[in-house]
């Protein structure tokens, strides 16, 4: 399995922070679920529900190789995420945050692999207009550089 790069992980944390800033994670959910849910809109419009679901499933499979507890997470038919609550309840906040960053990092990484950084950022900007092109491009350039 391909581990998510530190820079993509950092970028994912940024998205997670933007999503949770000033508000607690929705009851029964997580920041990663909210980020994924927010990306589901523009990505399903572009690639279809099935297209988004397959991307997210791949990202989850890659992330599971790094973070074992993510095996408790599943992608539902409509492309949303669900997690076995009893497993999550046993995890520390740090473990949850780490797993979420890896999952979102893998999803963003897949997009970068397929359509490149510029188009990826344009898609992400639909959900978070405050994200600038520099955020991702500089991160991934450093990764490859």
């Amino acid at each position, binding site marked *: 399995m391909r581990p998510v790069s530190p820079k993509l992980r950092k970028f994912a944390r940024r998205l997670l922070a933007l999503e949770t800033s000033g508000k607690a994670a929705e009851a029964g959910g997580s920041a990663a679920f909210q980020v994924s849910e927010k990306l589901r809109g*523009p990505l*399903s*419009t*572009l*690639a*279809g*529900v*099935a*297209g988004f679901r397959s*991307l997210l499933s791949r990202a989850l499979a890659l992330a599971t190789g790094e973070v074992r507890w993510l095996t408790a997470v599943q992608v539902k038919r409509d492309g949303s995420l669900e997690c076995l609550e009893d497993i999550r309840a046993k995890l520390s906040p740090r473990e949850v945050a780490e797993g979420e960053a890896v999952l979102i990092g893998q999803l963003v990484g897949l*997009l970068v692999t*397929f*359509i*490149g950084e*510029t*188009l990826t950022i*344009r*898609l992400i*900007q*639909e959900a978070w207009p405050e994200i600038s092109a520099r955020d991702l491009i500089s991160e991934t350039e450093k990764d490859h550089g």
Partner: protein
Amino acid sequence: MAKKAKPTGGQPTGKAASRSDKVEIRKLPTGVPGFDEILGGGLPEFSFNILAGGPGCGKTTMAHQFIFANATPERPALYFTILGESAIKMLRYQQQYTFFDPAKLNGAIRFINLSQVVLEKDLNDVLNEIIKEVEAANPAIVVVDSFRTALRKRTEVTEIEVQFFVQQLALHLTSWEATTFLIGEYVDAEVQENPVFTVADGVIWLSQVIERNSVVRKLQIIKLRGVSSVPGLHTFRISEDGLQAFSRTMGLAQRRGRPSRRPRLSIGIPELDDMMGGGIPQGDSLLVAGASGTGKSVIGTQFIAEGLKHGEPGIMAVFEERPEDVVRRAKHVGQDLETAEREGKLKLLYLRPLDLSVDESLQAILDSVKELSAKRLVIDSLVGFEMALAPGFRTDFRESLYRMMATLTNTGVTVLSTVELDESFTEFRFSHYMVSFLADDIVRLRYVDIDGVLRRIVTVIKMRDSDHSKDIREYEITRKGVVLTGRRLNEYRALITGIPAYWKRSWPMEDPLK
């Protein structure tokens, strides 16, 4: 007594509307170089078009070029994808083209995937989904790719239902002032029967024709309401810039007359200039024909070099030799092409792929002529040119040459083409292709056997609209290029057969040149 008819005062008379009464149909640029000319100026605004053809023909790429050329944030393009290529993959590949501008994505250009609706619901829902998105976005352009998939899945729907669906779609998209492309994979026979083609304002057909090992791409405007498009099959190429189309009537439409008195250009060989009546009339097409080794390319080089001496930029389109070989060979006859090329006064165009079309070659030459404001052009040689073409184009090479020469000379450039002939000692041919009619002027080179020595002779066969010498002169190829030697060979008869007879004396033959 019959009343005299009075002139009407500017009101419609009920007869045919005058030009000013007609609605003006704006034409949108397609973003495909050369295609607007074929369409008669561009794609009619608000038209409902089918972009059809087999897989890999370039349909999606053409649609992308169109949307990237026209979409704006205020009047965006909506690109509906159905069950064809995945949108993610499509973006992955399409962004490789130079026309792809990522800044337009999700602003001026929006991709919407309809596969779920197509799979789970009926045609009415598909229509409603498109209408909903169109009403929300107010797009100038709508693309449905692949439209065929939306219909193919529904085996249970009748032809009437399909026609109704297409009519409703066309009606709605036109009412919302959108120019539409429906992309689909169709076969030729369907044009006659498929109701979609009846409803469409325009049908653009892309195809790939395989000839031996070569593939040639062609496009045809089967139908286009409201404009005069150029009929017939036009070649196109797909490169990193996307599609580029080459009209089969390229440049012929704007044919201009030649002035009655034109300056003459020196060919770089003073005695040959004299034989031609003072050089080549500017804008003429001169054919230099002869066997291998007779110096055709040398004459072409001298013609270009002479122009460069007088500040006239030149183009050499070479098919048989590499540019560096041309430069090296020119040095052997005392001509420095390297400096001129470096200074941008000369361009050596090396056109040698084996699947070229005449139109592509012509476009490359025309672009170079324009770029350098060239006054002189050498095509060396027509035989090499023919070999560089895809086999499918060789069959109508003669017609293509006619179009090419007409188009090139129409630009005002003076063209010298060489053509290699198999030397025959029984006849005196001008070219392989019976193309002598397309040349304004013809110079024929050939070998003759005089007293057991193979020598070279030159004669001017034809100078259109002007007098010329009928002499047959001997020449040599020296370190200074082609040089005419001696006087007219008037002691021989049957020189043009290659085996002349000395007619002033009986055997043994005496050589008058000595």
